[in-house]
């Protein structure tokens, strides 16, 4: 049974991706109660931007740097000029707006890059395999996992060690109080939103070469990220981490053991959590 460790690693890799996407989603939700349906669209845009950039420069490191920056800008613009505008109309409008944005971004992607999967070819040492405790494993997957860990550590350091991180966490807890303490919460929120978009885009860039880049990839990971949030609990980063791990492994071993049921397993887990603990494993009681 040499497959089990391999699939375990596959699961870890996907869990890393999922965590990058769902952590931004859960932070934004925790702060402003805005559930961003367009969040996974940033992931998709990251993959597509990177595809185009790689065709020109063939340098993955460059696109790892530039694409998240572009998405940071895009996220900031969307928050400042679209989301903030409908904030006065209430949550329903914010949800509808992000839902509409996700729809438009998907259509724009189809218009620009075509409605078919695109592949990215890796070059250099990332394309090779490595011998790991007697297992042959692709370097790129390990690289993805390392990236996810690195980014998560940076994020944790920002959130728990810096002043801005303290403000963000306080705003997640009680944004009115933070606002009355003289901190510009809307600006902090814009930053968090843009940062979440950049994280999501980063995940897209590293996912591109492994999973194919196609217009449906946003919906796919969005649903998985939603499941992560439901299981981990709303607004909880720790919950998102553990739930990402659960979903990643469940997906990997589901594919190995019950190929036909692998999709349903995740939903079953979600339904189970909903029935037993509706607020999620680490969420506050609603």
């Amino acid at each position, binding site marked *: 049974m040499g497959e089990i460790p391999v699939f375990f690693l596959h699961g870890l890799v996907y869990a890393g991706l999922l965590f990058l996407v769902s952590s931004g989603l859960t932070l934004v939700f925790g702060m402003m109660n805005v559930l961003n349906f367009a969040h996974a669209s940033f992931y998709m845009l990251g993959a597509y931007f990177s595809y185009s950039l790689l065709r020109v420069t063939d340098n993955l490191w460059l696109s790892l740097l530039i694409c998240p920056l572009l998405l940071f800008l895009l996220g900031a613009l969307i928050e400042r000029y*679209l989301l903030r505008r*409908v904030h006065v109309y209430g949550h*329903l409008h914010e949800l509808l707006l992000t839902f509409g944005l996700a729809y*438009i971004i998907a259509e724009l992607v189809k*218009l620009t890059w075509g409605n078919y999967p695109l592949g990215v070819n890796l070059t250099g040492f990332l394309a090779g395999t490595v011998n790991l405790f007697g297992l042959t494993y692709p370097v790129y997957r390990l690289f993805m996992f390392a990236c996810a860990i690195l980014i998560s550590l940076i994020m944790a350091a920002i959130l728990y060690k810096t002043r801005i991180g303290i403000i963000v966490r306080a705003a997640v807890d009680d944004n009115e109080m933070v606002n009355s303490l003289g901190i510009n919460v809307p600006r902090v929120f814009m930053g968090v939103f843009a940062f979440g978009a950049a994280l999501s885009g980063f995940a897209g860039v590293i996912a591109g070469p492994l999973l194919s880049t196609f217009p449906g990839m946003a919906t796919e990971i969005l649903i998985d990220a939603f499941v992560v*949030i439901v299981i981990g609990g709303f607004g909880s980063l720790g919950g998102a981490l553990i739930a990402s791990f659960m979903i990643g492994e469940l997906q990997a071993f589901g594919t190995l053991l019950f190929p036909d049921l692998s999709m349903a397993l995740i939903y079953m887990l*979600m339904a189970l959590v909903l029935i037993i603990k509706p607020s999620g494993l680490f969420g506050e009681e609603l």
Partner: protein
Amino acid sequence: MMKQRSYGSFWMWGVFLLIMVVVLPLSVKSYQINLVTEMIIFGLFAVSYNLLLGYAGLLSFGHAMFFGTGAYATAVGLIHIPGLPFFGAVLIGTAASTVVGLALGALLLRHKGSYFALLTLAFNALFFAIATKWHSVTGGDDGLSLDRPDINLGFAQLNMSDINTFYYVTLVVIGSIILYCWYFNRTAMGQTVLLMRENEERMKFLGYNASITRLILFTFTAALAGLAGSFYALFFEFTSLSAISVDMTTIVVLMTFIGGTGSFIGPVLGAAVYIYLQDFLSDITDRWPLVMGIIFILMVLYAPGGLSGIITSLKEAWSKRFRKKGDIGMEGQER
């Protein structure tokens, strides 16, 4: 006095519309009849969605679950039960979506707001996954083709393969259901729903049970969406994955919001405009959904009342020009 006037114009428009839709098949080509039939079916779908969104304030991104369940149940019924009559198939579709609606409502309605929206979308994805994987029943990617059965009224046989006949049947059945939905908002149950949206705390203190009300409404809208889905399957004589996909949910969200959630007739208007635009735009460009999406976003940003909101404010601006200021206050109270 004014109230009478507005009711008068209401009836006038109603009668005008009725005559229009009844004589329509005599005057236009079957292509247009197809379009209008589709508009009526999607009109009901959008009305059922607006009962959730506009009347109960529940934003669901999974309404296609019920639409698709209705469509698939009808198709499966017609394929596997020989000699199943037309309305039997419709009944199977509606019943299936009612049961699904009740079960899911019990599970999902524990949450509100964003959480509810997220869960409905996730469950929609689950239904889509089931429809994709359960090949032996749903046909998977291939979909299911079916034959529209004729209706035997006892004294007459209605030939349903004729689109005009199907149009009239759709008009009578779906039209009367839409009328019932309009009436529903005036029933005690409908008023309770409005009370729940406006002030749930107060409703609870008055002794109403909010969760039961919400569950009944949710199940009711699921049944309506299933009915629309059932007619959708019968109309195209085909059921495919698109009926149960998140895209179908997007369509109904767009229709409802473009038409306007604030009035009863808004979603019907939205469905008509959507179907018409789709037909018109798809001749011009393959990426017509982009245009729809942009219209939707512009509506969300600048006209949250939708088309019916725009019409209402135009009407107000119009009457402002002709009436004194005092009258306008009264009109405001009417709503």
